[in-house]
């Protein structure tokens, strides 16, 4: 599926005059402003310095980390304690090259997926892999090595990345790929930005038959039949995902809706391209006590019953299929200032193994208030040395934060570690270093590459301090 080519796309420029930026060269840089920084879960919240500019190259010179749109849920994109500056990439958002015949595109790392989609749907190209939100930067997609509803056939985003341009810890700017500095390349896919600052990303896009999606959905009655249906759907459909109601009790636990999609054929699709709108934002944080489990339980039941027992099929807008939550910007404010965490773990297959049920029962026994559960079967591990997915079943659980959250995550991690699973760093805010080490036999190999490029430990995040033993 991936096309490997020796030469990176030609980018029409020489790079000698790096310091001649304007107006930077004409105006001294002001001191960065201390601001409140948080991930999407709004937990943890830290005071830190984020500096933004169109010129990512100069921005990354003294930064300990680069962050994009802040859609990782926990502390992956947050600076470590102290007076460290993180670079903010979203203003570095130019398309640098596009080969319309081969579908290869090169962008600055701050380029947002939403803009990529909207520019390329109508030209017949789509990102080979998309996470569940389009408010992410391409640099962030590489750093987290994101996966999507097509993981069982397409793997992670990193499988489709041809080369990266990055600033490594000693200040050098390096182009890496499977052919050149391969270890750095593979450690960077899913490396959470800790191997270097991503400056440019070149990747292979996917040809699409039309800019519309054909989607089918059906009710699944309980946990076991849901997993079985998900597994079966993956044999025929490129995009599959399961929404699961974990607030329903007894035999109904794990009932849900199975969604199967593919790009529509031209004769099925409407003649007009999909229209897109700027989504309204939730303007304020709601009070943290407002959203109660019983309300979500009713909402989930309604969602389930509203669908009906009949299978539904039809054309949908691609953004309805891939980004259902993006219809309201800043929806994370629903959870209030106390925030929420998304716990995402993958357990090895098969789907019929009792460990799947054991995981759900642990969650139940701990009274886990799971407001949203999304289940996805994962395909083989990819190139990324520390990427999250492995063959099995992935569970993504949205949990409002309260006094029990740490204990709940600990209990789940006991199961995940014992069963040979692992957690997703881009979501994590609560995992303990011991648990992470127990889940990650790959950590030493990754650390070796990381330290070879950053012997002084210059690059770090709040998460790397918490989980990887970095020094603040």
């Amino acid at each position: 599926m991936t096309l490997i080519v020796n030469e990176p796309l030609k980018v029409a420029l020489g790079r000698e005059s790096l310091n001649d930026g304007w107006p930077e060269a004409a105006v001294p840089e002001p001191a960065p402003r201390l601001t409140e920084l948080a991930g999407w879960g709004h937990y943890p919240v830290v005071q830190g310095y984020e500096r933004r500019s169109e010129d990512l190259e100069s921005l990354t010179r003294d930064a300990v980390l680069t962050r994009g749109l802040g859609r990782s849920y926990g502390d992956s994109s947050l600076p470590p304690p102290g007076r460290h500056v993180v670079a903010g990439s979203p203003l570095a958002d130019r398309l640098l090259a596009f080969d319309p015949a081969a579908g290869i595109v090169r962008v600055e790392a701050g380029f947002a997926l939403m803009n990529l989609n909207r520019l390329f749907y109508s030209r017949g190209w789509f990102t080979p892999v998309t996470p569940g939100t389009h408010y992410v930067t391409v640099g962030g997609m590489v750093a987290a090595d994101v996966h999507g509803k097509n993981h069982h056939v397409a793997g992670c985003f990193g499988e489709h990345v041809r080369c990266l341009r990055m600033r490594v810890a000693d200040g050098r700017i390096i182009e890496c790929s499977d052919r050149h500095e391969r270890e750095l390349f593979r450690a960077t896919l899913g490396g959470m930005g800790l191997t270097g600052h991503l400056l440019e990303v070149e990747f292979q896009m996917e040809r699409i038959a039309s800019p519309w999606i054909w989607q089918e959905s059906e009710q699944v009655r309980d946990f076991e039949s849901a997993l079985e249906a998900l597994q079966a759907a993956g044999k025929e459909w490129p995009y599959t995902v399961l929404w699961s109601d974990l607030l329903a009790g007894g035999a109904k636990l794990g009932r849900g809706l199975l969604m199967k999609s593919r790009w529509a054929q031209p004769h099925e699709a409407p003649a007009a391209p999909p229209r897109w709108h700027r989504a309204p934002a939730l303007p304020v944080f709601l009070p943290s006590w407002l959203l109660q489990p019983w309300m979500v339980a009713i909402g989930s039941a309604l969602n389930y019953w509203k669908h009906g027992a009949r299978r539904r099929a039809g054309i949908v807008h691609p953004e309805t299929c891939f980004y259902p939550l993006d219809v309201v910007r800043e929806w994370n404010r629903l959870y209030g200032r106390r925030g929420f965490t998304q716990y995402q773990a993958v357990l090895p297959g098969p789907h019929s193994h009792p460990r799947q049920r054991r995981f759900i029962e642990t969650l139940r026994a701990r009274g886990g208030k799971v407001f949203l559960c999304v289940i996805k079967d994962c395909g083989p591990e990819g190139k990324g040395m520390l990427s999250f997915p492995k063959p099995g079943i992935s569970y993504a659980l949205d949990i409002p934060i309260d006094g029990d959250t740490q204990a709940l995550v600990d209990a789940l991690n006991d199961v995940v570690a014992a069963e040979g699973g692992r957690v997703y760093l881009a979501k994590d805010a609560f995992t303990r270093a011991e648990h992470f080490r127990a889940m990650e036999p790959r950590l030493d190999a990754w650390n070796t590459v990381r330290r070879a490029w950053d012997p002084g430990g210059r690059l770090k995040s709040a998460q790397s301090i918490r989980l990887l033993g970095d020094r603040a």
Partner: protein
Amino acid sequence: MRAVLLGATKGMGRALARLMAERGDALYLLGRDRDDLARSAADLEIRGAAGTVGFTHCDLLDPATFAPALDAAVAALGGLDAVVVSAALFAAQETLERDGALRDRMLAANFANTIAFCELARERLLAAGGAARLCVFSSVAGDRARKPVLLYGATKAGLTYYLTGLDHKFAAQGLRPILVKPGFVKTGMVADLQPPPFAGEPEPVARAVLRAIDRGTPVVYAPGVWRWIMLVIRMLPRAVMRRIAF
């Protein structure tokens, strides 16, 4: 539309250039850093700008570069319909008070040199006989002197005065100056400042500006609410302006 843009590699200029590219306008970029210009030209070509997006060196701090750059642009575009100037220097008032050399550079770039550039652009726009849109980014900071943007605002007040007069004098000959007064817009230029209420985003601002360019609207506040904010601020008495911090 055939347009020349000075300052389109960053901020609101970048957003405006993208809208123009996506509807197929022919664009030519002026700026200081060739590497930066080349990257923006590539971005605009991929987004759909007509033909090749050319670019050449033009430094707002060096008026000798203006005429050659504009002539190169007109030659490359084979005509001229619009000139957009969104380049300017910005620094905090305290910084400008401390650093006299920087202050002088800012005063020169934003006022004297921008006007020198506009004079050359005016001649070429009228000679080309096209739509003759001269779109210049001034600022709401030029509407009323305020403590945090005193020096910067002074350059913008001068620019506003000039463009208003340009409209009076040359409208009959077909020139359409578009005076843009952005409020606080979240661009890289002010990334280190705390955004005030009603701060705008570059893209909606660019939409409003492009609409004004197409229609020949002489003055555009963007985001639009700043027209009313500035109306109130303009009416505040001196005694109040002495006391408040903004």
